[in-house]
C-alpha cells in the first residue's frame, strides 16, 4: 500500500501558523495563549504522532483485510477521490458525534477539548488512545463500498489538515456562502464551548452541512460569551493526567458501580451516572433552557 501521509508535509505549516497566531496574540490578546497550556497541547500532539506510528500499521492491516470484501471496484478515477473525501467527512461526522456521546470514545477525544484556550495549538492537542477508543471503525463502510485504504488514509489526512486552521479566535466570521457550507472558526468555537447552549453541537470536520442535515447545528451567537474546555475543567497542567484522566475516571466508576450499572459507565454519554448524581450535556442544556424560560424578560 502506498505510504504517503499529507499531514507529515503540513506540520511545518502548522508550526509557522502557530507562530503567526502567537504574534497576533501578543499584539491583540495575550490571554489567548498560556505557555503551559501550549506546552501540553503540543506535547499531546507529539504523543499522538508516536501513538499513530505504533498503531497505524495495525489499522492499515485491518483495512487491507476488510477491503477484499468490498461491494464495488471503484478504482482510482479522479471523481473517486472527491467522492471519497466527501464520504470520509461524513464518516468523520458520525465518529465525532459518537466520540462525544459514548464515554468510551469520549475518554480518548476529551484530550482535544481539555484546554480552556482556543487557539491553533489546541488543534494539535490530539489523543494518544484513539485506537483503543475504536474510532477507526467508522471508516469501515468506505472500505466495504470499495474505496481503497490508501485513498481513505489520504482523504482522512486532508480532512485533518483542513481542521487545523479553524481553531482560532483571530478570525471572527468568513463570507456567508463559506459559513453556510464549510466548517469555520465560528462554527468550531461553538463546538469547543462549554456554554450549555453550545454543548455537543457542530461535530463537522470539513463540511458544516452534516450538522445541518443531522440536526446538530448551532450558530455562534453574539450574546453568548464563550468559555472553552470541558464541563469539569481539569485544573491541571500534568501531561499524563491530561492524557488519561477520563480512562481513570471510567475505571474508578466501573469499579465502584453496582453490578447492573457498571457497563453504563462505559457506553452511556459522559456525565451519566446510575444514581443520577451527575449531569450529561443534555441535562445541563435542559436546565439552562428552563432557567431562560423562567428568567424575567428584559
Amino acid at each position, binding site marked *: 500500500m502506498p505510504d504517503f501521509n499529507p499531514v507529515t508535509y503540513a506540520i511545518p505549516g502548522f508550526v509557522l501558523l502557530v507562530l503567526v497566531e502567537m504574534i497576533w496574540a501578543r499584539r491583540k490578546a495575550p490571554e489567548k*495563549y*498560556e*505557555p503551559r497550556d501550549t506546552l501540553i497541547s503540543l506535547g499531546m500532539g507529539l504523543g499522538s*504522532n508516536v501513538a499513530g506510528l505504533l498503531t497505524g500499521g495495525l489499522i492499515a492491516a485491518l483495512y487491507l483485510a476488510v477491503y477484499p470484501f468490498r461491494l464495488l471496484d471503484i478504482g482510482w478515477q479522479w471523481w473517486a477521490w472527491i467522492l471519497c473525501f466527501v464520504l470520509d467527512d461524513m464518516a468523520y461526522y458520525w465518529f465525532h458525534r459518537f466520540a462525544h456521546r459514548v464515554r468510551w470514545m469520549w475518554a480518548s477525544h476529551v484530550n482535544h477539548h481539555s484546554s480552556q484556550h482556543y487557539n491553533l495549538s489546541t488543534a494539535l492537542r490530539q489523543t494518544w488512545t484513539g485506537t483503543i477508543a475504536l474510532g477507526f471503525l467508522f471508516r469501515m463502510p468506505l472500505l466495504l463500498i470499495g474505496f481503497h485504504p490508501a485513498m481513505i488514509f489520504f482523504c482522512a489526512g486532508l480532512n485533518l489538515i483542513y481542521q487545523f486552521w479553524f481553531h482560532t479566535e483571530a478570525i471572527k466570521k468568513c463570507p456567508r456562502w463559506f459559513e453556510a457550507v464549510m466548517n469555520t472558526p465560528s462554527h468550531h468555537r461553538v463546538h469547543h464551548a*462549554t456554554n450549555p447552549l453550545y454543548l455537543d453541537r457542530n461535530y463537522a470536520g470539513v463540511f458544516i452541512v452534516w450538522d445541518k442535515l443531522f440536526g446538530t447545528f448551532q450558530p455562534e451567537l453574539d450574546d453568548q460569551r464563550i468559555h472553552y474546555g470541558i464541563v469539569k475543567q481539569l*485544573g491541571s497542567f500534568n501531561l499524563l493526567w491530561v492524557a488519561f484522566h477520563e480512562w481513570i475516571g471510567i475505571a474508578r466508576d466501573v469499579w465502584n458501580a453496582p453490578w447492573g450499572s457498571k457497563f453504563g459507565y462505559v457506553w452511556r454519554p459522559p456525565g451519566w451516572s446510575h444514581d443520577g448524581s451527575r449531569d450529561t450535556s443534555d441535562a445541563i442544556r435542559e436546565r439552562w433552557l428552563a432557567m431562560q424560560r423562567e428568567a424575567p424578560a428584559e
Partner: protein
Amino acid sequence: MLEQLLQLGGSVVAVLLLAWICAKLGLGADVRIGSEDEAKRLAAEALCGFEATELALDRAGIGALLRDKEGRVMLLRRHGAMFASRLLDSHAFARLDRNFLTIGTGEETFGKVTLDLGDKAQVWASSLRHLGGATHA
C-alpha cells in the same frame, strides 16, 4: 528506525522551542477576580444553575469560595490564564492560619489553594466543617 528517532527528537525540540517562544512573547495573563460579581459570573459559567448567595473573595483575586442557596460550596481558583472550579464535598479539607484558608478538594491533580479571605476566613473555615470530611489544623 533511525530516521524516525531523529524525527521524534526534532519534534521534541520544536515543541519545547514553541512553548519557550510563547513564554518569551509574554503570552498568558495574570488573571484576577476583580469583583464579587465577576466571581459569581465565573461560578455560574462553571456550573450551570449555581447562583451564589454568599462568597468570600481572596484579597489578591486569585480565587474565591462561594455558596449557593442549595448550600453547595464551590472553590474557584486560578488555573493559568483561566479559572477552574470544584464543588467541595466530604473529601475536602481546610486549614486555617489567621486570615489564610488553605483548601484542598481531595483531588490530587486539582491541588490545594491558599486564599487570603481576611476576616471571613474563620467563618468559612468553620462552615466548611459541615461538609462532612473537612478538617482543621
